[in-house]
């Protein structure tokens, strides 16, 4: 369900955080959907349970997940599935950073990059 790479420079809890946020934002994890238990996820990936629980707690604080006594955590019913635009933009900021950097290296102007993005957007709509 999740892809966790312990050898990555990105801490495991952040990898999980980002993936749950994205899956909830996209509706892939709908309101009420149950998440795997901390223990199961930790065992599956052979990682420290505390790193999983850290991610879950942060997601709970953000209002994305709900905790239930003795039951699995679920996606919150009024989950900010439509998170504020600023939040959603923040999530793709790292990808934009990379695109901007690559554009600078290739001496592509801001306008040219914006045009290319627009074309890409239109093409992906056609699919």
């Amino acid at each position, binding site marked *: 369900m999740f892809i966790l790479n*312990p*050898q990555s*420079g990105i801490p*495991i809890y952040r990898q999980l955080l980002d993936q749950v946020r994205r899956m909830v934002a996209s509706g892939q994890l709908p309101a009420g959907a149950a998440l795997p238990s901390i223990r199961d996820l930790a065992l599956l990936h052979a990682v420290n*349970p*505390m790193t999983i*629980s850290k991610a879950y707690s942060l997601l709970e604080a953000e209002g994305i997940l709900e905790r239930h006594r003795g039951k699995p955590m679920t996606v919150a019913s009024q989950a900010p599935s439509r998170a504020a635009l600023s939040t959603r933009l923040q999530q793709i900021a790292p990808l934009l*950073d990379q695109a901007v950097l690559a554009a600078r290296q290739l001496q592509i102007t801001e306008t040219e990059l914006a045009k290319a993005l627009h074309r890409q957007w239109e093409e992906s709509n056609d699919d």
Partner: protein
Amino acid sequence: MMTSPTIHAAHLGKAFGSRDVLRDLSFEVMPGDVVGVLGKNGAGKTTLLELMLGFTPPTTGEVSVFGHPSRRMPGTVKLRVGFVPQQDELLDPLSVRDQLNLVASFYPDWDGALVERLCDEWHIDPRARIRSMSMGERQKLSIVLAFGQRPQLLVLDEPVASLDPLARRQFLEQLVELSADAQRAVVFSSHIVSDIERLANRIWILKEGRLDWQGDLDSLKESIVRLHLQCAGGLPERLAIPGLLSLRRLEGGAVAVVRDWTQAAQHELERQIHGCVQAESLGLEEIFLELHR
């Protein structure tokens, strides 16, 4: 309610003759912590673990386990501590079964069912003679003996050096089980950085007898980054980069590794070089190597 630390050490030091092996170490281990101890050969990892367990007296400072000085742990406290040494302490003439029964007799909380299951899953034959077992099999048995005690504190010194990847993974899974209730503490040293990266939430990096880094693995990964500096006009001769560990100049820029990195420092550096800076996060192995350049 305040949770009291499982291990507490203040200004701990150890010298053998005139040689300082460990100097001025202060740390705490809390219930639920899984501490990974990293260091080059001879950095003092084994000595540190032995000091914690009270096998050898400190030259300076103090260390206590469950509130008792390590050298004077009452018997009831010792029963809560499990240890897997680098050199196993199995009794050659015994069979596996006899060795298991012997150790079980010391521990009132002995988990016989767990030991049976692990022996089965890890292919340890209870009828085998210990003297005829391979290094890897002996190491597996030592680990099973420690898990069987259901220790509140488990200390392991290079526990997986002789294990194959499959056995290592089984061992890691068992450590996850052990730490899942967040009540127990684990301290383990290993040269297999990827194992530590999976299991540890706290990292100690020993360098020349000192704790060069102690803290969360997550903070470590967020703190030490590789910077790619690019500026069309060429890099200034003099650069002021806080926390610089290494710098390599290249055509049109440089690659630098820094510690205690912040977003603010990144903006400051971009202004300084009139160019752009990209931060790349590093895996634990690369961080370890960078800290030892």
